[in-house]
């Protein structure tokens, strides 16, 4: 069974914001709400890195845990969604989320918050699939159309990958082994120690530092 995840390759992200634009356009997101944004570290300094951030659809989502009205649910594919009819806009999920994913539109004067809005992995919400009500509240349901999130599919450099966690991990592993850079980072052996299909870890062409199969302790070591 698929478990939907996003993966952003910081070596490839060029901060073009096409993921942000694609999301905004696809779901007709109102002004002031950013389901996805690009964060840049050491901006302007040689070696700067950018990463595209949105809801990461956590396996053990803190937003689900703190919601006082229990408006969150998780689909079979591991996508974290919520029911806007139930949301009271309290903002607890915003404080709990480590990625700043929950967004709150301003609905009036004096800073009144509307119902929470966040990335849906282009999976809509509890309204009937691809209905007008679903589009109005949650945006387009691309998963029901057999498509992946617009941000990942529109990414100009394919830095942002979206889809089944195993599939995109394989794509990323294959990419790192081919370019020979990235396998030296901390945690590589823990997250991506499996060889690409048909390949052998540590074989010629493999990234320097990729561990030749020796089991690593939990938590990872610099391989």
């Amino acid at each position, binding site marked *: 069974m*698929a478990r939907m995840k996003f993966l952003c390759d910081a070596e490839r992200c060029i901060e073009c914001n096409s993921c942000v634009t694609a999301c905004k356009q696809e779901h007709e997101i109102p002004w002031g709400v950013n389901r996805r944004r690009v964060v840049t570290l050491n901006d302007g300094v040689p070696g700067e890195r950018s990463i595209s951030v949105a809801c990461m659809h956590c396996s053990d989502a803190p937003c689900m845990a703190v919601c006082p009205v229990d408006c969150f649910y998780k689909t079979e594919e591991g996508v974290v969604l919520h029911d806007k009819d139930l949301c009271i806009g309290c903002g607890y999920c915003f404080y709990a989320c480590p990625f700043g994913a929950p967004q709150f539109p301003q609905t009036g004067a004096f800073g009144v918050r509307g119902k929470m809005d966040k990335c849906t992995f282009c999976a809509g919400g509890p309204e009937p699939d691809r209905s007008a009500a679903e589009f109005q509240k949650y945006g387009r349901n691309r*998963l029901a159309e057999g498509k992946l999130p617009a941000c990942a599919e529109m990414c100009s450099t394919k830095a942002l990958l979206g889809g089944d966690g195993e599939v995109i991990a394989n794509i990323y592993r294959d990419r790192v082994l081919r370019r020979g850079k990235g396998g030296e980072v901390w945690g590589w052996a823990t997250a991506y120690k499996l060889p690409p299909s048909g390949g052998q870890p540590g074989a010629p062409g493999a990234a320097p530092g990729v561990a030749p199969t020796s089991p690593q302790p939990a938590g990872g070591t610099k391989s």
Partner: protein
Amino acid sequence: MMRARTTGLAAFAVVALLVAGCGERPQVVNYKQGKYQGKPDTPAYASAPYNGNRQQWDNAIDTRAQHQNEYVRLRD
């Protein structure tokens, strides 16, 4: 008599002070997973064009995911 009572009270106070920390409760909040109370949702493959065909939907998503791998696309 008075002195013995004072000593006893002092000893009791010292013991009470020493064991005071034993009754301390953990201050960390344990979040409990709630239950979803909203409207039920249908799976992504339930509606047209897949009409409940999970395998067909999985294949479509897998094919789509592989389009993100330019090495696969270049080989074609």
